[in-house]
């Protein structure tokens, strides 16, 4: 599974928490540190499983299987609100939005 950040959102990192608002339905989210790492790594070219294996597990010392399940649930929820785009193929698009 590949994931990419949608361009129809607003986002900013505030004190370690990513603040995101959907421009489509104005739903507002804040992501914790782990979710922020996944969101920032969502470039459309890296598999979700690789993001979990390379960025989540070593950094947060979590069980890979459990982290994978949590990540998929998180991605599914954000995809429902149009915050993330999900595909079985790499997502080739315009350069991903800058996440400062």
């Amino acid at each position: 599974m590949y994931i990419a950040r949608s361009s129809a959102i607003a986002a900013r990192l505030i004190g370690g928490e990513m603040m995101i608002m959907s421009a489509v339905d104005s739903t507002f989210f804040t992501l914790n540190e782990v979710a922020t790492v996944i969101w920032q790594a969502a470039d459309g070219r890296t598999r979700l499983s690789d993001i979990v294996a390379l960025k989540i597990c070593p950094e947060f010392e979590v069980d890979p299987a459990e982290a994978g399940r949590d990540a998929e649930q998180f991605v599914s929820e954000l995809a429902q609100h149009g915050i993330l785009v999900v595909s079985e193929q790499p997502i080739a698009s315009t350069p991903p939005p800058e996440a400062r």
Partner: protein
Amino acid sequence: MSLLAEMNQKALGLGIPISVHLDITYRCNERCIHCYLDHDDHGEMTTAEIKDVLNQLSDAGVFFLTLSGGEVLMRRDFFAIVEHARRLLFNVKLKTNGVMIREAQARRIRELGVEQVQISVYSHRPEVHDAITKLPGSLKRTIEAIRFLKSQGLKVVIANVLMASNLFDNTGVMALAKELGVSYTLDPTITPKMDGDTSVLALRIPGPELKQIFRSEELVGNVEAFCAPPPTPGEDIMDGLPCSAGHTACYITPYGDVFPCVQFPLPSGNLRRQKFAEIWQNSPQLNEIRSIRGRDLPTCSSCAHVGTCTRCPGLAYMEGNMRGPSTADCEKSFQRTGIPTANMLFRSRGSSGVPLIQIRAAAAL
């Protein structure tokens, strides 16, 4: 507390300007009779300068970005600016009169992911609206723009500034908003011009009519609750901040001047000479504003309305003292509740507005 309120609180604690209002031009195709701006170009920031400012605002943690003017579409680089802002993932809100928005512009605004477009409508009657904007045909163009934006699925808000010239047309504008399927907001505040000229204040709604507006259920909801006498203010009010200006919000002019708020023209730095972060963190003016608490307001801290008043520090500043009362808000509190404000009582006694006896306490070091 809502998630948004939580983030505002967090931004306040971290000293982050979560919300910035940037006027990209003061030029305008309308000449509204109540406008507080002059419409000449005194050297607006270039496209590159504005993009650099946006980069700095993004680095500073700004999330909500309002682009306004003047009329934003008077700038030929308007879409380049919005595109850059959206690339930086700001939540972008536009304020416009809509006159230059046709189908192509509406589509581009939607493609760029603008969150909301606020459009000024003064009356549902062309002869009234156009007399205020001094642009014949402007209401027709503005309504067409709203339809174009709506057809793109954009969130549109009609802002209805109410003054003596369009008094009670709010009902017609509300009906128009309903017909168009857009939100409606009313603002009865007329502010002095940026250069200090107060002649436009003659357009403010007279007190008795303001009272009538405040008793309109469709505008204020529960009239009894809205017009109820203010509760006794607690310590939290005395320790509270007057508003977000300078704390989590600020305003930037087309010339790069930084003010605490669009209604608070206290020069606090200029982005052509300083970096935004330097101004935000070190400006003596912004730091002075940040030091003010409810208890520091000489007249208002003794006022029954202190906890519920909409007192604007910027309007108070334009009256001569940022810690003083804002008489327009005193009038609103009075007309809303029927209870005179401390400022009104002091004035009626011929006082300077400073209580005769003041007690100040400070914590022991």
